[in-house]
């Protein structure tokens, strides 16, 4: 076999510049990945900020706003809020982070850093560099470890606000999963306010496995809630519950009205975000039900 064919074989089967895959039977025996800190400080330098503004305003936003139909509510809650703050959102699509960043008022968008999964976005150098530049992202160890919150604390200390997704990963069926306590611990530990953000329609627009929004400019909604501040001595678990409830209320506003969402009790709110207690296909089915009211063009039950 010639050298060229050898190189092609290695590039294909070892997935050069792509995420490497463990054989299934090797997964239980794989040593735990050592947390590694990809340097992202360069992305927060003035030059990095200028480049990012260009990428977001000149690239991401035009694409998002032409491929989807974003609706943004509640930006007024940010008036008077002083940085740093932690934006906490539900997560079901790769659209979520750019959607929130492009929905923020320009003053906020410039100073928000996004927590991104170290094992997903920072496993290859090229992917890590792009993610850090475009989203001001920093690596977050999803499997725990000493550096889970270390970088986040440092960034808060430097005055950067954060966008975090406490579910830890994108929802596999569009419904909200349990929150991890990391964001709440950061808020309680540093007395930092949290802004609940509910994202609706992003799963329907671009679920796991899709790399581009679906056809028909699907409607996506970003709802910013009133900032929540940890009370003196409040435990992270209690604050995390308040955060969950805050997002659930915003989520419910999309289904009902602001007034009805205010009147519902906590159990009803959470039941609404958790989805039906049914097999996975039915949960996915409900999450992907076409938005009849706003999807452009004639409605089709089955896409062409």
């Amino acid at each position: 076999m010639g050298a060229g064919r050898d190189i092609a074989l290695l590039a294909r089967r070892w997935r050069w510049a792509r995420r490497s895959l463990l054989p299934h039977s090797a997964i239980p025996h794989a040593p735990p990945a050592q947390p590694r800190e990809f340097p992202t400080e360069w992305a927060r330098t003035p030059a990095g900020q200028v480049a990012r503004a260009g990428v977001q305003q000149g690239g991401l936003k035009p694409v998002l706003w032409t491929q989807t139909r974003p609706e943004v509510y509640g930006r007024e809650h940010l008036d008077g809020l002083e940085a740093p703050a932690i934006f906490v959102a539900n997560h079901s699509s790769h659209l979520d982070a750019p959607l929130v960043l492009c929905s923020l008022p320009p003053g906020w968008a410039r100073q928000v850093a996004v927590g991104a999964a170290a094992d997903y976005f920072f496993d290859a150098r090229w992917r890590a560099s792009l993610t850090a530049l475009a989203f001001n992202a920093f690596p977050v160890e999803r499997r725990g470890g000493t550096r889970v919150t270390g970088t986040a604390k440092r960034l808060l200390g430097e005055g950067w606000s954060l966008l975090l997704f406490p579910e830890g990963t994108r929802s596999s069926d569009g419904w909200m999963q349990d929150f991890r306590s990391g964001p709440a611990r950061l808020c309680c530990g540093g007395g930092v306010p949290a802004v609940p953000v509910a994202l609706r329609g992003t799963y329907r627009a671009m679920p796991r496995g899709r790399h581009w929004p679906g056809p028909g400019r699907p409607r996506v909604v970003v709802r910013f809630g009133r900032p929540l501040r940890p009370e003196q001595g409040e435990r992270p678990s209690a604050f995390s519950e308040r955060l969950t409830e805050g997002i659930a209320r915003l989520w419910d506003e999309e289904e009902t009205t602001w007034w009805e969402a205010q009147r519902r009790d906590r159990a009803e709110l959470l039941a609404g975000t958790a989805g039906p207690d049914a097999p996975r296909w039915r949960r996915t089915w409900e999450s992907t039900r076409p938005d009849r009211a706003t999807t452009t063009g004639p409605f089709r039950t089955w896409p062409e």
Partner: protein
Amino acid sequence: MLDVDERTPPLIVHHGEGFSLQQFPLGTRVVYPPDSLPGLPDVTAAIDAALDEPIDSPPLDELLFADMRLAIVFDDLSIPLPPMRAPDIRQRVVEAVIERAAQAGVDDVHLIAANSLHRRMTPDELQHILGERVFRSFWPERLRNHDAEDPDDLVVLGETGHGEVVEINRTAAEADLLVYVNVNLIAMNGGDKSVPVGLASYRSLRHHHNVHTMLHSRSFNDPPRSAMHHSYDRMGDVVADTVRLFQIETTVNNETFPPQFDFLNTREWEWSYRQQGAYLAAKRANELAPAKVRRKVWQAVEAPYEVTSVNAGEVNAVHERTLANVHRQQLTEIDGQADILVFGLPYLCPYNVNSVMNPILVSCLGLGYYFNMYKNRPVVREGGVLIAFHPVPWEFHQVHHPSYVDFFDEVLAETTDPAAIEAKFEQAYATDPWYVHLYRTSYAYHGVHPFYMWYWGAHALDHLDDVIFVGANRKSVRRMGFRSASTFNDALEMASDSVGRSPRITYMHTPPLTMAEVR
């Protein structure tokens, strides 16, 4: 252990002085060697501790006294494989023993390589094993190879209850103390194999190096189930009754290849970009190199083995611990037998260090050593198929393996049946004066050695329905009664005659060495 799925990259397969990536069918079970164990942090301290606090024996210092005759016997170059990067563990142990002998005022010291019927080692090879200091002090008067055909330096110690004659080296047997220094690479080595085999004559060896014994050794790497080892043990008892023996055994880990070839020590899906680059560079350089250069480079490979244990004292007690350490490094448990067993045979076996791996040695490595790397049951079922990767060139080292040439041309041309060969040809080759002369004065393996190599595969030949070599010289493979295939897929197609269209395939990913415990 791994089951090949769609995510599994092609796997490294050795084939002689080369290697390549081979795609295996989905569902193939791959048996990898266990991860290399960490070496002892302080080998010198471990040697001292073993000599000072031996098992079931007084400390070495108490056994040494002025005016005594001390014989230090050590394993020859057939182990470990590849040869260990200097300093060899035997050098370190021998130096420690000699240091103590010097302090005790011992003058009469003899160092003897336990090469049995293997070829004599060259001075350079002895120096590599023992180090410059030992070599300079003792060569050539007091450092030598065992000569199994020297009637003046052999002595019969007695007979076992089974009528087995125990005849070994006289100088070693009649010493006041015989210190045996071993490196235990696989479970077959060491224990009562050391003295009764390493220092024996043909007259003694024929009791266990024969077809009947090999057919009843299942496997010869599992001493309790090995008729060969039962014979060693009986002979060991005779030795123990007549010789004051102090056994020192050592084990090494699985660091088989040096850092530039570390991709050969690493599971493929864990290859870094650097290791992928090293693979590409090494493979390309290997393909472009002239044959002589290629062989020279491969034979120059020295393993960065690290020592995992040093034990000394009474043979059986020491060997029990040694075996536990070998198993700790090599044993992999697997469920059930396969229909097809696949090996990639490398460039080296115990009998072609600094030499040529001729077809008989290829057969011995595959059907003998590798096939027998099991406990309980063979990895492949009875009536199964062995597929081995090796070019099997029709090539012999004329100095090292003269009787192999004749064995291949004369004996195998007539029959490949081990029992028939043993009955008709063995005696003539074993006593041929020319082969004896070459063994004693040149660097030739004994005339009977190719027979033993053929017997080594007797159990596999009896057990398997078919043996197929991939990418091999068709003439040499046919001479040995095997079949050859151009590609692995062709080999699988040929194997389907015996095992059907949906065989269970097991690939033993070795070297580094692994031993399967088949449940």
